[in-house]
């Protein structure tokens, strides 16, 4: 049996769209992975929020991969906090991936995102956390 590539959906942006950021969704066994890339600020936070909240909320867990985000500010931080709190109230898990020593990670740390959602350094460790979370509470 050949390994199947998980289905990947573009929610926002993409090549040639002129968007500041793009968002893609990929199904993993343990939950949904949302990958954001580009820059997130007040000018595109509404369309990003919209794209994310449009998703059917059926997964056990959500991983937000910010590895390819080059810039984010308080608009993004607020979205992440809101999302984390909303998911927690429904007993769903949210993990954020952001590489250490990157500018976005610095902003996430300064605004204490870890209070609401665990932050993993890499996508792999994020996915491991997501899987583990299905059995054990963090």
């Amino acid at each position, binding site marked *: 049996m050949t390994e199947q590539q998980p289905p990947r959906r573009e929610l926002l942006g993409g090549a040639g769209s*002129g968007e*500041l950021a793009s968002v893609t969704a990929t199904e993993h066994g343990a939950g949904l992975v949302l990958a954001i890339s580009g820059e997130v*600020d*007040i000018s595109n936070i509404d369309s990003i929020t919209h794209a994310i909240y449009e998703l059917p909320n059926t997964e056990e867990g959500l991983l937000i991969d910010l590895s390819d985000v080059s810039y984010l500010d*308080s608009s993004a*931080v*607020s979205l992440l906090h809101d999302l984390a709190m909303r998911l927690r109230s429904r007993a769903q898990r949210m993990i954020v991936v952001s590489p250490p020593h990157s*500018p976005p990670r610095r902003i996430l740390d300064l605004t204490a995102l870890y209070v609401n959602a665990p932050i993993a350094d890499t996508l792999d460790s994020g996915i491991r956390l997501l899987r583990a979370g299905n059995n054990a509470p963090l």
Partner: protein
Amino acid sequence: MADYQDQPGTILLVDDHRENLAALQAVLEPLREPLVLAESGEQALRALLHMECSLILLDVRMAGMDGLQTARIIRSRPGTSHIPIIFMTAQSSELDEITKAYESGAVDYVVKPFEPEILRAKVGVFVQLHRERVERVRESRARAEAEAVARAVRTLQILSDAAMTYLDIDELAAALVQRSAELFGAAAAVLLLRDDKLPGLHVRARAGEQALEIEDDRIRVGEDVLGEIAATRGGAILQAHDLDAEDRAKAGLGDGLASLLVVPLLSAGELMGLLLLAAEHENHFDQRDLELLTLAADRMALAVDHAQRYADGRLLVETLQLSLLPERLPLHPRMQLAARYMPAGLAPQVGGDWYDAVELDDNRIAVMIGDVVGHGIRAAITMSELRNALRAFAIEGHSPGEALRQLDRVVLATRGPGMIATLLFIVIDAAEGTVTLARAGHPPPALRAVDGSVRFLETARTLPLGVDPNEVSSQETYPMKPGETLLLFTDGLVERRGEPITDSFDRLLDALAQAPAEVELLCEHVLQKTGTEQGRDDDVAVLAVQLVDASVGALELKLPARAQSVTVARHRLRAWLEENAPELDPIARADLEVAWSEACSNVVRHAYGPAEAFFDASASREGNELRMTVRDTGQWRAPGSRSGGRGLPLMKELSDELVIDRQDDSTTVTMVRQLPSDGPGTAMLCP
């Protein structure tokens, strides 16, 4: 003494002997009039407070307050003075007593023990008199009512006519406010309407000789005296002397205005606006005026709602056009772009003007502007096809001349001759400092040099697209230096009826020469100075491209207060920091970008009016000190819910010094950051 509420024919019987009351009752029963019994003068007076009485039978000699005293009090009260009183006296009464009885207000008297027939007859006469009187009052009330109804119908008719006549919201508002002022004899009138984009109610039209000044031309629902009335959704009459000085000012009652009539405009329960009528005299307006204007306001609200929906329909078409224009222009660290599109006149239709800009690589962008002949959906579709084809040619790397040749072929092949479109296609290379252009029947772009001199960049004159398959488009390359600005436009900007086109081109060059350096402001200035604001027959598009001069000492930006400007400001800061603070490590540079963006975002979040407001942002370096300021002309407020209150702490955290200077008319946020003094390093990581 139970139930004597409002029985118009009621007869009040007053005697301190119950057996006398019982006898009277028996005598008067056959009249079939309601009877009320009182055993003392005091009881009688109390009873009269609660009922309408046709006649009072009053015993003269009573314990406590006697009949004469009781009668005098009844006569002295406005509510009872008209009620006839028949005194009942004993057989032995002196003439003197009877005289006194008449003096205290009796209309007749009967002597006890009375003859039942005579008493019934007398009482019957007074009851009949009372009925006639009531009837007369009714008639005169009905007449007044009829007159009022006629006036109301007339008033409503006049206001409804206005409501039906005007579809344009501003014309409608002007007509409604003018006619209301005339009909109600108001010295001043103001109509405020809601606005989809802005909170509160806003002055839309005024009338009258006097000025009714509302602060900022705006009422916040629920705030101040008028806002509180608006919140109740009911009308009100205010007298200036009942208000304190502050409320008088808030209600717009300046010198010479003594009373105010306020009614809300409600449509399907929704508050559409507020109509204010002011008069020079106190008590000029009465309850009836309030009721009538409230009734009229219902019709006005419907008309306003209708007109706004109509305007929205037009907005929809304009939105279609705008959706065919790029949502955001490329953000290029070495080039600054701004564009404006203005739809034609009043008719709801899509114009054929369009523009686009595509980033080709780190140094080059392609900009294009065009005009498809005709209006409406067809023109818009053609425009969208041209735009997509041209984008593809540009990204594939075709030169402007080559791209136009290809496009000409596409147009002829797919549409055949007859579809006319003009086009200007330009590639700007910031590294080479060149601008390469080709055009198909489109006006050439204008270039403003750093010294302020202006000229058109000509190419060989060519035909529009889709006219001649043998047409060969030529391209030209000109130098373009940092700080220079290129302006692309459509002919709507220069065509004016009854004027030689050369005059219009001269006016455009003049406008460009005098325009502010900042590209957003430059576009505004050019549109304004070429008279594009009013009475356009054609739609207009302009696009400005400026080569950024990052070597110039300080960064000075003036940007419209909208979300996209925050991105522009950040990218400009990034380029400026690379040039002016190259020793910064990536984290420190990102810190400054975030602090700067947060300050700009806060201005944008609280901007009042999306297109009109601008803000200033500047950055400068003084030795090892970096100073960034963001200044706006609105009231600065602490970052609100959209940033989750995290903007301000971030700004504090990411700068060494944060000062927020709030003045009455502006707010300046200054952030200072010290650079490492001993050359490039990583000392900036944690401030």
